[in-house]
């Protein structure tokens, strides 16, 4: 069984197809793993053993009838708790949604079910996806499988940790400013933020509607491509969904080759503020890419340095508006104020939001309310939107010269739980390299680049491509993965300490 959980999703699909194992066996192996290690990792907020095994039995029936629903039919998946799942609680890591059972499935979830993937459960996250460490979950932090004293990244730390700890071969994350890519980097896994509009947002509880995008969290680039093909593509229920077919992603992995590919190293994403070991692994990866035949040049994106500022105005503004729906009237928590007889709806709403939201959510709602208030709107939100234009133009200029851009995914490796919890600015800096992609809507992938010398923890390499050219992420990501794994003698995760005996 131990051997099953270490295989990639495509290997598992292949083994199920050949009759070497069954979906029920694979799903049970992952449920057993969750039972064994999740007390220490806390990647899951909810585990649905019965539902997953039921879906697995159906997958096995389709397989034995020779009619698999998809390439990944029968391979289990974990879903971030920000996506609506019918029959399973959806809390967004918040008290205000404790126990909420959505009456419908998000499109991503519906597509997973239609493709035959048993859903193991819902993964932990920073409350409403606000954070870079998963410490802002109302249900307690997730621990990094590489070192349980450290953060697994955020906001999707549950999904990255579940995949890194072999609790799931696949997971879904969402990325508003880096919440798929930064957790992937600090856990030694793969994370992809698709082009904005490439994956439906229907049923994804909105943080910042103009930035949010769901995508795959996996242990191999090929698995990410396969999962991306299942969840991606046009959805009439999302008005921002791109009405065009996805590029051929698995094919891009199969034909991965860097000869003649022009790669731009972003001058502004590196250097000062980036940990020495993170930079060293990045520089080595870039050299490998050069040796593999890519044409590598340095590219300047002068406005990226304002990305963080623009993001932390745009995101709270959109969030303060999106989270206004939590009014204690139609679903979720309702708290009556203590000392009021016959309280009004407004008093109930005010008391409920005080009790139901955590510190970071309150901080950002207040910040967004401020940035949108009259007298400040032009100076803050309006200016941030202009910076967004400048950042998009930087990307346009860069992609006129090169096919993809590369940078370290995150400036540091995983920090200790608690270290930055009450220092919002230090926490926000984690997303400095990932935010520009969200502001411009372009796709990005993080692949492991190695372990930093100073702490032995994983670092990530980010690849960015022009909007709708997601295939380039897979083409370049797959080459980087295979070149580095050849050096390491196997996947980076094979170097992670064994879980179970520890702690």
């Amino acid at each position, binding site marked *: 069984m131990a051997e099953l959980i270490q295989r990639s999703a495509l290997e598992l699909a292949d083994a199920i197809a050949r009759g070497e194992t069954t979906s029920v066996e694979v799903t049970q192996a992952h449920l057993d793993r969750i039972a064994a290690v999740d007390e220490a990792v806390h990647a899951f907020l909810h585990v649905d053993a019965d539902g997953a095994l039921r879906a697995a039995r159906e997958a096995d029936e389709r397989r034995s009838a020779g009619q698999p629903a998809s390439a990944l039919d029968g391979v289990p998946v974990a879903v971030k708790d920000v996506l609506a799942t019918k029959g399973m609680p959806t809390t967004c890591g918040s008290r205000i949604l404790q126990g909420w059972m959505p009456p419908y499935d998000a499109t991503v979830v519906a597509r997973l079910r239609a493709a035959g993937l048993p859903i193991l459960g819902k993964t932990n996250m920073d409350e409403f996806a606000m954070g870079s460490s998963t410490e802002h979950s109302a249900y307690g932090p997730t621990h990094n499988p590489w070192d349980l004293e450290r953060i697994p990244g955020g906001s999707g730390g549950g999904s990255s940790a579940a995949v890194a700890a072999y609790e799931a071969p696949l997971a879904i994350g969402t990325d508003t400013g880096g919440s798929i890519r930064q957790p992937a980097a600090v856990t030694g896994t793969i994370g992809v933020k698709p082009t*904005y509009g490439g994956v439906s947002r229907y049923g994804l509880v909105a943080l910042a509607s*103009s930035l949010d995008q769901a995508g795959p969290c996996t242990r191999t680039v090929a698995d990410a491509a396969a999962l991306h093909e299942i969840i991606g593509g046009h959805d009439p229920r999302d008005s921002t969904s791109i009405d065009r077919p996805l590029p051929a992603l698995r094919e891009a992995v199969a034909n991965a080759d860097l000869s003649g590919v022009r790669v731009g190293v972003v001058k502004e994403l590196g250097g000062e503020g980036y940990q020495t070991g993170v930079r060293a692994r990045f520089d080595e990866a870039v050299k490998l890419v050069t040796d593999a035949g890519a044409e590598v040049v340095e590219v300047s994106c002068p406005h990226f340095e304002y990305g963080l500022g*623009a993001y932390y105005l745009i995101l709270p503004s959109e969030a303060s508006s999106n989270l206004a729906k939590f009014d204690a*009237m139609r679903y979720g928590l309702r708290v009556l104020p203590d000392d009021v007889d016959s309280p009004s709806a407004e008093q109930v709403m005010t008391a409920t*939001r005080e009790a139901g939201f955590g510190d970071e959510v*309150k901080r950002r709602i207040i910040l967004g309310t401020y940035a949108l*208030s009259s007298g*400040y709107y032009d100076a803050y939100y309006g200016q941030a939107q*202009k910076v967004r234009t400048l950042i998009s133009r930087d990307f346009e200029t860069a992609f006129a010269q090169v096919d993809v851009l590369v940078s370290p995914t995150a400036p540091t490796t995983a920090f200790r739980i608690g270290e930055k919890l009450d220092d919002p600015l230090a926490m926000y800096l984690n997303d400095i390299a990932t935010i520009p992609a969200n502001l411009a*809507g372009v796709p990005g992938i993080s692949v492991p680049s190695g372990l930093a010398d100073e702490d032995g923890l994983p670092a990530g390499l980010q690849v960015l491509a022009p909007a709708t050219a997601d295939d380039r992420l897979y083409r370049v990501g797959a080459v980087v993965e295979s070149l580095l794994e050849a050096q390491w003698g196997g996947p980076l995760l094979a170097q992670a300490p064994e879980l179970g005996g520890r702690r």
Partner: protein
Amino acid sequence: MAEHAAPAITREEVAHLAHLARIDLTDAELDHLAPQLAVILESVASVSKVAADDIPPTSHAVPLTNVFRPDEVQPGLTAEEALAGAPEAEEQRFRVPRILGEEA
């Protein structure tokens, strides 16, 4: 006001914003949040200096146009499903606290 890009945000202002956002912050939260917000605002204030007046704002990453679909009836939630998560429901409706003031 708009010229002063990084004003120190006062405790009273935070209290007012909390009221606008319908969050009943405690005194301790107000004490804690006001200086934190001031630091955050100071750090994001750089955006006010970079973009010239002639730069158009971007509200969305991809160009958006209005999207239409054929006006066909599709199954929706039943009343029971829609009310399943309600804090209180009565006669197939959401039951809410009083909306108007009690005395005139």
